[in-house]
């Protein structure tokens, strides 16, 4: 191999960015095949792995090499009915590193997709060309919009089984567009593919001249994701206070945390909540030297001009742009545990770097996530259910609506006895 290729790869490597995506599809839509295909065609799979799956494909009597076998770990589990869980997979092209949250369809689907979606920039929703838009497709689209995944790619798979017909693709596109117009989704793209044969996955299909758009991999590599964060509302939850107590850094008091929103610059006037004291940013410090500015998702350390009593859980914002502060919070909740949500029950919650408790005041409704119907009569929220609830927290929560800021708009609920994470909540604008 040419040395220049290697050089290019190793140099590019330092300029790559990162895209996290999740894959959704019902059983047998071809999700495993697609992931296998992406990795195989982007040459992220090595020869010995390939030999291994070629052999097992032959043993199983498969006609084509079964790329789904690459992600077979999960399948075996599914068949044996063992835990179904999110698995993370990695591949890279010279442009981007990709983290796939691979969420198996099926029983625990909602819980898994919500978990995988919570950190994703993008969701791939698979539709079987023969079946068209079905209930599950709607469910996946709803969860993606609920979790505010900014980009959605609808892959119409198994085009080979419908003779690569444009009408089939257009019909699905039309149906999905109609359904998703009821949801909060902005960027939807449609790609006709055959995961099995590779059409439009990495290489352009020769069987679908009518499709002028980009292939899946090209789209994944080039989609703009850097405006997905909120760069407007400055939010800095204090995570940890750094006090070196050494001679050299005697008076140093640094506030470490992850920037959840906005851009913080040296000299900025800031307000510390809940105390309400204002001061200025003295410096943004790091091991590698002082920084001019900090933005999401950087993890930095701030020093401030004035000595104010600040601890973990406090939030730094701008005086003219503050989060809401309150104890009565309305949420969409996804329930993750066998034990049902108890109205009147108390739970521990985590919100940014804050710990507190809450009481469940009311269930407003439960969603039918296939039809978007709201049940006003059945309000029991169990495993994999999604509903709208009202809680009261033990101390004021400094929050934004989830659709404005994922970081300050999300909470998890914890069972105080088992310590399990039982609920995932997204704060609604009215709170």
């Amino acid at each position, binding site marked *: 191999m040419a040395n220049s290729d290697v050089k290019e790869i190793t140099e590019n490597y330092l300029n790559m960015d990162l895209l996290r995506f999740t894959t959704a599809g019902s059983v047998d839509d071809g999700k495993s095949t697609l992931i296998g295909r992406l990795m195989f065609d982007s040459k992220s799979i090595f020869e010995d792995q390939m030999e291994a799956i070629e052999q097992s494909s032959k043993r199983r009597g498969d006609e084509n090499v079964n790329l789904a076998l690459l992600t077979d770990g999960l399948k075996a589990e599914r068949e044996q009915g063992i835990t179904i869980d999110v698995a993370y997979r990695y591949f890279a092209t010279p442009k981007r590193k990709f983290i796939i949250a691979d969420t198996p369809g099926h029983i625990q689907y909602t819980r898994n997709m919500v978990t995988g979606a919570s950190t994703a920039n993008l969701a791939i929703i698979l539709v079987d060309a023969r079946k068209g838009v079905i209930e599950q497709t709607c469910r996946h689209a709803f969860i993606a919009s609920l979790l505010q995944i900014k980009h959605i790619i609808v892959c119409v798979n198994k085009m080979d089984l419908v003779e690569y017909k444009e009408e089939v693709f257009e019909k699905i596109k039309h149906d999905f567009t109609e359904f998703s117009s009821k949801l909060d989704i902005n960027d939807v793209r449609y790609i006709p593919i055959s995961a099995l044969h590779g059409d439009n996955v990495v290489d352009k299909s020769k069987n679908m001249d009518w499709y002028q758009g980009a292939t899946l991999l090209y789209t994944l590599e080039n989609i703009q994701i850097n405006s997905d964060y909120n*760069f407007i509302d400055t939010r800095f939850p204090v995570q940890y206070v*750094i006090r070196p107590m050494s001679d050299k850094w005697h008076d140093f008091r640094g506030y470490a945390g992850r920037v959840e929103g906005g851009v913080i610059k040296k000299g900025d006037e800031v307000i510390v909540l809940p105390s309400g004291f204002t001061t200025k940013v003295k410096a943004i410090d*790091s091991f590698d030297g002082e920084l001019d500015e900090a933005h999401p998702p950087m993890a930095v350390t701030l020093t401030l001009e004035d000595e104010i009593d600040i601890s973990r859980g406090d939030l730094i914002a701008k005086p003219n742009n503050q989060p809401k502060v309150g104890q009565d919070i309305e949420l969409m909740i996804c329930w993750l545990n066998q034990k049902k949500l108890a109205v009147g029950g108390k739970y521990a919650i985590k919100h940014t770097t804050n710990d507190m408790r809450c009481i469940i005041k009311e269930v407003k409704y439960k969603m039918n996530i296939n039809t978007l119907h709201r049940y006003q009569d059945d309000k029991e929220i169990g495993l994999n259910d999604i509903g709208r609830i009202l809680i009261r927290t033990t101390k004021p929560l400094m929050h934004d609506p989830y659709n404005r800021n994922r970081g300050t708009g999300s909470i998890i609920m914890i069972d105080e006895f088992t310590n399990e994470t039982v609920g995932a909540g997204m704060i609604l604008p009215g709170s």
Partner: protein
Amino acid sequence: MSSYTLTHLEQLEAEAIFIFREVAAQFEKPVLLFSGGKDSICLVRLAQKAFWPAKIPFPLMHIDTGHNFPEAIEYRDSMAKEVGAELIVRYVQDSIDKGKAQEEKGPNPSRNAIQSITLLDSIEELKFDAAFGGARRDEEKARAKERFFSHRDDFGQWDPKNQRPELWNLFNGRKHVGEHFRVFPISNWTEMDVWQYIAQEKIDLPSIYFSHKREVVERDNMLLAKSDFITLMKGETYEEKIIRYRTLGDMTCTGAVESKAADVQDIIQEVASARITERGGRADDKRSEAAMEERKIQGYF
């Protein structure tokens, strides 16, 4: 807006730093498990960054099998001194002497398995409630579902069926008395990321990661270094070869690879060329042995 971007390494670094701070805030007595390998060396750098200008607010702990490469021990001691961290060493030999663990038999007995006994005992003895490790999800299939915060029951066991879902950046470290957590800040890194980070940060590594001459014996398709812990079997001889190590473990079971890679850039090229070869789907007879092994270890799934 579009200028506010981070490279993937910057994002991975920020994620790891966040995890370190979260553990320091949520737990009473964390410890960083330092194996001496490149992954745990990266962890130390990330911990330094997380708490700078303060020192790392928890000790490093090494479980010494007694079969380590002397170069690795030297590196460990000088590194701990340099970063100013407390270093705790616990010995597998002590567990053996106390009858808690039993030595394997054979011509190259491995202490890998019994290492975990010493580890769990030390965690209990020193009352650590969170232990950082350098494991990555891309290392093997089974790890693809591991959490950043991995809950262990009061026997130190991992129950894959009972892991807590992890959403957003909200990490649930609540536990009952006697339970502890393993925490993996570089879960989302691949081997290539680790090497690139080492290059970018100009992190020193133990010398045996780089090409050098050494007397080795070939056994079970592995090149094992000459040492007191290895007994030559019939027909075996030591041979001098130009080799390097890809991982650092016991001298008894860590195989060397023949390689001329003399610095981090060379190693990155070796790793990258293994991939490119495959990328082009070309049969490449010049593929180095290191590259071959890379593929196996990388084992994407």
